[in-house]
């Protein structure tokens, strides 16, 4: 990423593309976006990574986090299309990324926390977080996919959030 940002290295970008584009496409498809649109959005994400790489600050966030936020912001704006809300949410969220000085100091701590949380959550809890917050699936859908009662999904989410809260 640093080679992309500092040297506009196309070869490095091509490696990054090969690694991340299939994962971004999956992210969109997990979020109920069709394969075709998922690919269009993936192209938009990677184009943003290329054109706005100067905005990436390693002291503020990990590369994975930065690319995730770009992908997420494009998904939100896809959902907001044709709505009366005329300001792109992507712009507001980018503004938030660029205008927070406290990030720089806190980033090291955040990274430690992320590692600690990943270590302390069990596989069921990680799965619940992935399905609920990464794939944005409804409780009902999670219950269907995991073949467990709806009440169990709700209590698992609640317990996972309580555990997260203790770790934060």
């Amino acid at each position, binding site marked *: 990423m640093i080679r992309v940002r500092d040297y506009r290295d196309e070869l490095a970008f091509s490696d990054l593309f090969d690694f991340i584009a299939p994962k971004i496409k999956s992210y969109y498809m997990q979020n109920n976006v069709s394969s075709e649109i998922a690919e269009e959005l*993936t192209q938009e994400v990677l184009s943003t990574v290329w054109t706005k790489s100067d905005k990436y600050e390693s002291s503020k966030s990990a590369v*994975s*986090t930065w690319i995730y936020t770009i992908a997420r912001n494009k998904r939100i704006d896809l959902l907001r299309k044709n709505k009366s809300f005329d300001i792109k*949410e992507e712009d507001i969220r980018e503004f938030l990324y660029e205008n927070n000085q406290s990030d720089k100091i806190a980033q090291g701590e955040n990274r430690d926390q992320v590692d600690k949380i990943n270590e302390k959550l069990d596989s069921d809890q990680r799965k619940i977080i992935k399905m609920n917050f990464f794939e944005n699936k409804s409780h009902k859908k999670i219950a269907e996919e995991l073949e467990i009662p709806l009440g169990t999904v709700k209590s698992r989410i609640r317990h996972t959030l309580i555990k997260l809260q203790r770790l934060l």
Partner: protein
Amino acid sequence: MNGTLVKNRLIFDFASGSLGPAKSIFASTYLYLNSKAKSLNNTFEGILGDQLFSNENSEIKKIKYSDCISNKPSKNSFNSNESSPITKIVGPLNELDWKQIYRGFKEFSLKIEDEDEIKLIKMDPGISVPIHSHAGKEYILVLDGSFCDEYGKYNKGDIQINDQKIKHTPIACENEGCICLSITEKDAIFYGRYGSFLNLFTFIRSFFK
């Protein structure tokens, strides 16, 4: 759910991108004003970023890396000055066309298509809102000044989330007044001396939204 869990849930939902437009504006302004909330958001985005990097692969059929390379310089829609997300949307708060609801209490509604209602509230020093509760949840973020109610004092960057069980009487602090961003999932229910009048007013007003 306890209060902290409800606040955290708002931040997690913001990080995952699942909030509606009104709550999303609310949360982005909250994160801008409150560094603790921002840090929590960053941590949660970090978790989601890790999930992206460890995500399964879907075969890319049409696009190539070279399709994503353009030498157009990046453009920013916003100038990076020190105004908050909410002022990016509505402009400077002191230039808004505030609507007086009663003496010392003004509102400015954001016209956003959403099931949640989002508005700005301006209270003069010492002005209170009659005791009320809510049919759905109410979210209040202090943008400027401070207010107090039965549960404590809320300063710039603090939020309060109330559900239908909570009845409260917010009062703007004596010396500075208060500007808040508020989201109501459903209209407030008023109690006390003017309760029935205010409920009727809310009911009639709902026809003109």
